[in-house]
């Protein structure tokens, strides 16, 4: 019963981490595809995005089964270290943005900049290479982070199929909502999502690093949920300290 509960908790964290990572990255990719589509036409924009999705799918198809062959302890150590570094980078950025030390990512500004660059690229031929390349690069680069999250979380938990389905669901959901509202999703609370994803990735990274080093966690898999709580408290406390520090600096400047 306890084992079932802890496995269910670990699965819930896996689903949440993959879904939110894919959502955040898809919002960023969608901004670029919409900018390309509105400025240079939809055919090349969708072709570029489609080819990028196919290449990313092939990467998962090739690397996924290969990674599963690596001994589980080694795989979990490698994946744990990668997720811990990746997660700490995300969390750091989200904390600095929340506390006002770093500008928040502005999808409207990114949309405008991409449109301006595409207009400067000149006349629009029938088969628009510029549009194709910009859409391909946007989707491929943002999608690579989804692929890494899917491969890392999916293979180390032996739930690659589930991770792929969850990521696809997030990509389709964001794509459909974006198509329905026909504009970039600037109202998505991207930094808050990034904070949650960072907490989940760091928790998974810490957990798998420990497992890879043959550390016995108190409570087994259920400790994963405990780690989410610990890092959530740490992130919240760090934001509060940073906000107070930032306000102190502003007061001093007045």
């Amino acid at each position, binding site marked *: 019963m306890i084992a079932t509960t802890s496995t269910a908790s670990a699965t819930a964290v896996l689903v949440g981490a993959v879904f939110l990572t894919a959502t955040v990255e898809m919002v960023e990719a969608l901004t670029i595809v919409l900018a390309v589509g509105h400025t240079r036409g939809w055919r090349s924009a969708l072709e570029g995005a489609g080819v990028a999705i196919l290449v990313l799918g092939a990467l998962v198809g090739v690397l996924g089964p290969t990674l599963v062959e690596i001994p589980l302890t080694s795989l979990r150590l490698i994946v744990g270290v990668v997720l811990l*570094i*990746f997660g*700490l980078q995300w*969390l750091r950025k989200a904390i600095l943005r929340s506390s006002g030390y770093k500008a928040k990512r502005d999808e409207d500004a990114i949309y405008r900049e991409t449109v301006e660059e595409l207009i400067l690229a000149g006349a629009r031929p029938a088969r628009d290479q510029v549009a194709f390349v910009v859409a391909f690069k946007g989707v491929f680069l943002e999608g690579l982070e989804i692929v890494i999250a899917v491969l890392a979380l999916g293979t180390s938990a032996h739930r690659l199929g589930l991770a792929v389905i969850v990521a696809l669901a997030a990509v389709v959901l964001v794509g459909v909502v974006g198509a329905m509202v026909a504009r970039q999703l600037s109202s998505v609370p991207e930094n808050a999502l990034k904070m949650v994803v960072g907490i989940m990735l760091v928790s998974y990274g810490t957990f798998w690093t420990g497992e890879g*080093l043959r*550390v016995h966690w108190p409570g087994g898999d259920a400790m994963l949920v405990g780690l989410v709580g610990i890092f959530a408290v740490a992130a919240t406390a760090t934001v509060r300290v940073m906000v107070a520090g930032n306000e102190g600096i502003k007061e001093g400047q007045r």
Partner: protein
Amino acid sequence: MSSNNAPENQTFLWRLAAGFGRFWWDFLVGDTPEITVAVLVIVLIVAVLRDVAHANDAAYATLVVSSVGTLALSVARGRK
């Protein structure tokens, strides 16, 4: 024909390898080398605690506390 293509293939493979290496460098190190270095040091310390000192409790406590510490230090560095 093939001798002409050889340098081109080498250049392509070199660019591919360089691009792959740059991606992973940016991904894992980027502008936060302190995080990468700290995580590698943490792994080393936890491995020693677990396998040499056989101190499991100290190993997991060190892993969690030093990860939180790394986050706090890196955020403090990013503030400047």
